[in-house]
């Protein structure tokens, strides 16, 4: 359940931003989480429920976008290969693929009031 620690970090960043912009409350926290990270969406939502009380995000909506794992092959011209099985070896030529998406861990935006 490292999602607790991660959510704590998210709320710290969000409250810091609200402070900076003189906002009294946070309406929306929008996250982008790569599929190829060890973060479980349900656990993150649970952590948010547990930790939001008493923060400026008490009434906020948590929106989590899961970013699918995608890669490109340095050898083939394939630029945007979806990877359903986490295999980073090209199915066509066996080259090592370069990850282009799916490792994100970011707050995309906050909606402040």
């Amino acid at each position, binding site marked *: 359940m*490292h999602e607790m620690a991660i959510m704590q970090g998210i709320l710290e960043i969000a409250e810091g931003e609200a402070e900076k912009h003189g906002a009294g409350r946070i309406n929306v926290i929008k996250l982008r989480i790569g599929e*190829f*990270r*060890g973060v479980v969406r349900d656990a993150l939502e649970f952590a948010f429920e547990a930790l939001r009380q008493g923060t400026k995000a008490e009434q906020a909506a948590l929106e989590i976008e899961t970013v699918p794992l995608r890669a490109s092959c340095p050898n083939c011209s394939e630029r945007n290969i979806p990877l359903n099985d986490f*295999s*980073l070896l090209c199915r066509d030529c066996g080259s090592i693929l370069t990850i282009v998406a799916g490792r994100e861990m970011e707050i995309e*935006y906050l*909606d*402040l009031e």
Partner: protein
Amino acid sequence: MHQVTLETGIMEANEQLASHNRELYDAQGISVINLMSAPGAGKTSVLEKTIQRMKDDYRLGVIEGDLMTTMDADRISALGVPAYQITTGTVCHLDARMVHNALHNFDIGGIELLFIENVGNLVCPAEFNLGEHLKIMVYSVVEGAEKPRKYPVMFHESAVVLLNKVDLLPYSGVSLEELQRNVLAVNPEAIIFPVSCRTGEGFDAWTEWLRGWIDARRSAITRAGNAASGN
């Protein structure tokens, strides 16, 4: 209502502390390894065996991370190597701050190679950098050949993967070839050593690699030191 677009990564605070730890290690010429695995895969056993083979030639130290008890640190101290125990209570991983706090209480001066044994957990530790120079994962082969595909992140993050308990392969029905294929699928550049802490199998190859790594870092550190002092 207004939208604020952010560029800060969620793990930024931990990353900054991790870089700070890294500066402390580098300033003292210490090489640091973060050792991760699921509970009971054999991290402490691997450390014991590795220490026995290397302690005459290198100044070693260990930081142990566990939920509770100092048992693992006691096992290391028994070998005459300085060990410091971090107990995390309920937290399932070490983070850069816990290690930083440990560095205030544990004198790492004079240590060349510091191992940090993470809390036993197959998922969480991989998300938290500690400022280490190398991540190593221990995996117990009896847990099955398919786990790298089901829990790919730690395998992906680790430069070296030790496939431990190979003495149990005959009883487990697990195929070492299939397991290695699955590790390489999620981490094509992984350096893999099949080992057994029970029989010692594989430890020659693994410790030879580790000696090579630390020696290469030693000479890089000396060169950097000479450059800094104008020699």
